[in-house]
């Protein structure tokens, strides 16, 4: 463990985000978004007719829908020019052959992971890595025991071919329809890559399933789709990590995540996002939880120029549970607008939302959340807690929760606090020999601990390291 930390310490992190690879793409679609582009993507992937139809329908919806502009205090999206974003790039790896071990990957892709600072030792320990490099998952490794149990973890494109019925039933139908919002519609039209996870009834996947994403083409968008189906009584923890080098043009990330939590199943979805500071991160993530199912969202939003992300859960079955843990860190020029949505549509459903945010150097964080308890969802309870830390007077920290309660037999509580780092706390730590920066660092680490303790060690280390980087030298 300590050697891993050393490894991270030694990694020149600034470099980690500044380097970029020579682009080598096999297929590049035209700029802009037309029916031709969508047909080309579908054609190149050799998709069945129904998928093409869904893409084209989503494209129509996208063209008809207005940009979201009238949300109170929303991030400014005026600099986002979707027409300028190349929706699809396939890396020059013949993935139809597939790389079945790490060493078979092209060196420069391995190198990308190296630079991301994912330690070799950890990599080995991972039970399966799906790495998205330029819109395609090019590396998959599954432990045999999973396959024996019938667990499927593959890339989304493959799933369309290999697990057609499952995908056809679940893909952007009940969970995130393209009509949900403009960027979900865009996603539905040009999605590419992503992960498909299927866990059969009663199976517990002990190791977290992981996928790393990376953007590495100037002006390129990422529209990966994640579909997780956890059958009755199964259990799985999916982890997604993102990080992108910096570029001059505006990047768009409009991913889609759909999670189906079966009866008494348990799904945790964790992500630490660190897009470069010119990326618009406009994701749609949603889960549907059946009777007795549990959904847990753990998300850290670190990077991007602007983020609008509200992972939501529909508690559809009696006694279903949802837990959200989110952290947002906004530095200079960043507007991180994130939160959670929970719909209590059945009796005895429970939800908790724990949100932490840190605003610094003129950054803005906003918690925007919705809890709805439908008429008839008696015995439901929800507790929302938002805490915000502010470092300086240029920064902004907002909290905008919405509660719609149509049922009387409920227990609803929301609380939020905003404050600065306590001078007394800093003083106490300084009296114990820490300098000012280290003291603040420690306080911040403590502040976000509820998040980090939910993450596997390498993510927790990375998250702490990222926050360290964000704070380095600019404190005091």
């Amino acid at each position, binding site marked *: 463990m300590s050697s891993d930390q050393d490894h991270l310490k030694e990694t020149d992190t600034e470099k980690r985000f500044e380097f970029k690879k020579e682009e080598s793409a096999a297929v590049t679609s035209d700029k802009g978004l037309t029916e031709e582009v969508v047909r080309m993507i579908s054609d190149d992937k050799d998709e069945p007719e129904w998928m093409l139809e869904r893409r084209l329908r989503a494209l129509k919806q996208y063209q008809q829908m207005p940009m979201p502009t009238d949300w109170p205090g929303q991030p400014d999206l005026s600099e986002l020019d979707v027409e300028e974003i190349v929706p699809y790039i396939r890396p020059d790896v013949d993935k139809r052959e597939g790389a079945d071990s790490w060493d078979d990957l092209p060196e420069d892709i391995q190198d990308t992971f190296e630079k991301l600072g994912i330690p070799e030792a950890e990599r080995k320990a991972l039970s399966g890595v799906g790495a998205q490099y330029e819109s395609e998952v090019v590396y998959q490794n599954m432990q045999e025991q999973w396959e024996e149990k019938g667990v499927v973890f593959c890339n989304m494109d493959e799933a369309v071919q290999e697990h057609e019925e499952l995908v056809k039933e679940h893909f952007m139908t009940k969970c995130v329809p393209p009509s949900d919002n403009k960027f979900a519609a865009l996603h539905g039209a040009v999605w590419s890559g992503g992960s498909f996870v299927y866990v059969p009834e009663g199976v517990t996947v002990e190791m977290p399933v992981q996928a790393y994403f990376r953007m590495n083409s100037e002006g390129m968008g990422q529209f990966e789709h994640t579909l997780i189906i956890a059958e009755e009584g199964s259990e799985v923890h999916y982890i997604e990590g993102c990080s992108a080098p910096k570029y001059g043009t505006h990047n768009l990330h409009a991913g889609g995540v759909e999670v189906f939590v079966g009866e008494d199943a348990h799904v945790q979805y964790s992500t630490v996002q660190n897009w470069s500071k010119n990326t618009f991160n406009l994701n749609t993530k949603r889960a549907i939880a059946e009777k007795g199912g549990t959904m847990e969202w753990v998300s850290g939003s670190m990077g991007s120029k602007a983020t609008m992300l509200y992972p939501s859960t529909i508690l559809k079955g009696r006694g279903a549970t949802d837990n959200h843990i989110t952290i947002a860190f906004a530095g200079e020029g960043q507007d991180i607008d994130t939160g959670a949505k929970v719909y209590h549509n059945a009796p005895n459903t429970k939800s908790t939302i724990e949100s932490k945010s840190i605003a610094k150097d003129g950054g803005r964080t906003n918690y925007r959340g919705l809890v709805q308890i439908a008429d008839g969802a008696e015995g439901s309870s929800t507790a929302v807690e938002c805490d915000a830390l502010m470092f300086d007077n240029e920064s902004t920290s*907002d909290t905008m929760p*919405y509660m719609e*309660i149509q049922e009387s037999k409920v227990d609803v509580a929301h609380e939020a606090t905003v404050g600065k780092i306590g001078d007394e706390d800093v003083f106490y730590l300084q009296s114990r020999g820490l300098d000012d920066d280290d003291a603040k660092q420690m306080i911040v680490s403590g502040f976000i601990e509820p998040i980090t303790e939910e993450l596997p060690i390498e993510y927790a280390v990375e998250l702490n390291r990222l926050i360290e980087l964000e704070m380095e030298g600019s404190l005091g």
Partner: protein
Amino acid sequence: MSTQVHATIDEGTVRELSDSLDEPEWLLETRLSALEALDGLDMPSVIRTPGREWTNLHDLDFEGFVDPLNAAEDKDQVGPDEVEVLPFAEAVDEHEDLVREQFGSVVDPEEDYLTALSTALFSTGTVVYVPEGVDAEDVTVRTEMNSQSLFNYTLVVTEESSSVTILERQSTGDDVSGERYYSGIVEVAAAENSHVQYGSLQNLSEETYNYTLKRGHADTYATINWIEGNIGSRLTKSSVETYLQGDSSESQIVGAFFGHEDQHFDVNARVWHEAEHTTADLVTRGVLDDEARSVYEGVQDVGSGAWDTNSYQRENTLMLSDESEADASPKLIINNHDTEASHSATVGQVDEEDLFYMETRGTDPQTAENMLVEGFFVPVLEEVAVDELRDDLQELVAARLRE
């Protein structure tokens, strides 16, 4: 903007109104300007969440109930000798400069559709003027609406180091058939080190639509405390707001509502911290029975110059019936890190254990529930510093309890 007030209201209406009140030219101009602005103005902002507007003001039949030329009311406006408590028209005669200077200084007469409508059409009101150093209690304004509609305007001006306590009550008198409309705009300009307590108790008939906007500007060391009680009306859209403009100014907004049948209360408490060392405390409690619905928005806005801010907000709703709905959105907007701010909101029903305990002590279930409802309002009532208002509110709450 889907409203067609214009079908019944035009420039002639406004001129006739202004003439009958014998108003100076500047006031007529203000009214006409507001009338003209109507076309381009939106309704007061209401909360929207995906797929729904929490209060729909567009669907109100303004044409049906706006009848400004036939306004009738029964009004008491009294206060101690050392303060001026004048009917609006009289105040314009006697203190024209003061009224002209202050009118619209706190509330923009054209800030939204309903405010502009009120500006163009108000026919009655009160001006309370408290000279420097004067401490006044017991200013009472009682308005009984006896017509289809009534547009009311209240201006409170307190000079340096003065203080005043004002109690306002609205009710409806004579039966008028059909829907009715009450609109009240209140401006409070609190000068340095002055102290204003403004209590309001609204008990209009349940055919009456009620729009009210109360806003105060607090200068250095000034305090503006609001008490906002809503019991009556078919639908209420009420906003109570304070701008803390001077260093060390303070504001408290205490709200209470009790809705039943199909009443709809859209209550808003908002405070803007614009200066240093300011403090705000927002406390609202409401009970809902039958199909009543409440919508609450509380906003604590801390500006970038507002160093050393303290800002607190609490909102609790008690639901007595399964058909009721409680929507809430407490918001924090913080642009200065030297802030201690928090808000909380809860929704729930009467505590089963409390009920059980009281029943084991021989109280019948309905009496026990009623006692708990009355107890629920206690934390709010304790914040009400005006005995008379507290007693009135308690009485109205008691009257609304189930037999």
